[in-house]
């Protein structure tokens, strides 16, 4: 198998890792706190995509049993895990945003560099 074939066969893995890195980069480098949270979400979504694609098998159906129609199913466990993961991700996002709202009330900005500047001026 050539390199390109490997890439084409596993494009979903490569795609999710690329998205993961985009989110990772946004999370670490942007000074705007809202963008940091967006980066956090992109990163989590990439991992969810990765987990779902582990369970996917080509040409098979979602695991919903309909009488009289025998199907080959995909692995439903990763999808179930991702459902829990999404719930956890939503609560983390909500909590992070509420903290950012509080910070905005104190400092009047959501930029972490500006907050640092205000703090160094105060002390």
């Amino acid at each position, binding site marked *: 198998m050539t390199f390109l074939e490997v890439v084409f066969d596993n494009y979903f893995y490569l795609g999710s890792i690329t998205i*993961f890195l985009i989110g*990772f980069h946004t*999370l*670490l480098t942007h000074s705007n*706190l809202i963008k*940091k*949270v967006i980066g*956090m979400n992109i*990163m*989590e979504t990439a*991992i969810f995509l*990765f*987990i779902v694609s*582990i369970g996917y098998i080509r040409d098979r159906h979602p695991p919903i049993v309909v009488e009289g129609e025998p199907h080959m199913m995909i692995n439903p*466990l*990763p999808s179930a*895990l991702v459902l*829990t*993961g999404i719930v*956890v991700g939503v*609560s*983390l996002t909500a*909590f*992070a945003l509420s*903290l*950012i709202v*509080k*910070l905005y009330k*104190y*400092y009047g900005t959501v930029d972490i560099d500006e*907050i640092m500047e205000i*703090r160094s001026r105060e002390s």
Partner: protein
Amino acid sequence: MTHLPILIITTSLLVAFVLPLLGRHFPRAVEPLIIGIISANIVQVSGLLLYVNANGTFRYALGGWSPPWGIALSIDALGLFMILIIQSVSLGILIFARDDLIHEIENSLKPWYYTLFLLLLTAMTGLSVANDFFNVFVFMEISTITACAIIAIKPHPDCIEASLKYLILSTLGSGLVLFGLALVYMVTGYLSFDFIAESLPNAMNLYPLNIIVSLALLVVGMGIKAALFPLHVWLPDAHSSAVSPSSAILSGVVVKIYAVILIRLLYTVYGLDILAHIPISQILLTMATLAIFMGSLFAMGQTDIKRMLAYSSVAQIGYIFLGIALLSPSGITGGILHIANHAIMKSLLFLAAGAIIYQTGIRKIKDLVGIGYQMPLTMGIFGVGALAMVGIPGFNGFVSKFHLAVGALEAQQPVFVIVILISSLMNAVYYFPILIRAFFGPVNHQMKFDQLPLGMVISLIGFAVATIYLGLLPGGLINLAEAISQFLLSRS
């Protein structure tokens, strides 16, 4: 089969959600209830520990569904030992918090604080016994959110910022862990630790890259959450700005739970054979050594007493990882002993610092001159903690450092004995000036006695007695730690 394991988790979980309601209608019942439930948990865990010591470890299958379909909890000495530390240390902290919290947060928030505290305890209890990857992930997220929330509950911009920093970096850590578990699931098809451990050697032959990358992701993810040196940036802000009881539980217990999960993963899931393929031991040893030295160096430069204690935690986490990474029986024993001993002495130091702030409002180390004449009891107890931290024989810090040194010799890496010795001297460099300032400064104060509420005094004395008792008679704890290290090494 006994149902105690799940009872400990579910009763705490239920009580946590009842507390705010109770706080609205019967505010005086909140504190007795939470102290009662934690005492009950301690009794149950002690019972389970005796049972496990007599009959060996067992798996508790939730709802009777056995893995790989159901969820199982691993009831072994390591997890129960950790639960015992979590619950007993937090019992002491809560007795202290009763009187201390009034000064730091609004009265109406107190029941909510206890809710978050109990949820944090539940999550850590779950983490100690969780035997599959997905429960580890879910409990980890619960503990992340509640740990951030007990920092942010104090309405001060520093706390909110520290909490947000902690939250973002923690989420990064759990993201990496989730990626790591996805990679393991991809090649083994299991989430349960037992089944993964069985199928990993085979998977290692077929897909070595997956296993190695997952190991790296898990170590870095847990490293962020456990504040291992280059990944510790969130810890000093978070632990120093929080209210004192939160600082004590975060520094004393929360960072260590991730070290415990890493121990479980490395020894019982991956096993020494797979670890031998990659220099994970050397990497962890280097990071631990850096943590020990840099944590102490940063601590020397601090002017705020709680910030200094927070940096000292970074150094102490280094000791724990040193013990884990030595891969020798005494090293693991030492690491596990240090988890317990550091939990007790760091909680003691943070609470003593909290008592100083409570009575005098002083946070700067240079303002502590003569404080020993105003608060002789608190400073005496702080002295006990400081001596234990330095590792003077007769205090519990010595016991674990001694085992770590023996472990380094067993692993034939005597250089780490020197690391432990030098770092103990470095600990002395930043702890003793505080004691010297407090007791030997210019005397311009009348000798007074501490004016602290009874709860705070009881809690401080309790921690001090535990520090000295475990220093003088460490036999029981050492036996337990040795049993755990045997259990871990027999599995791999």
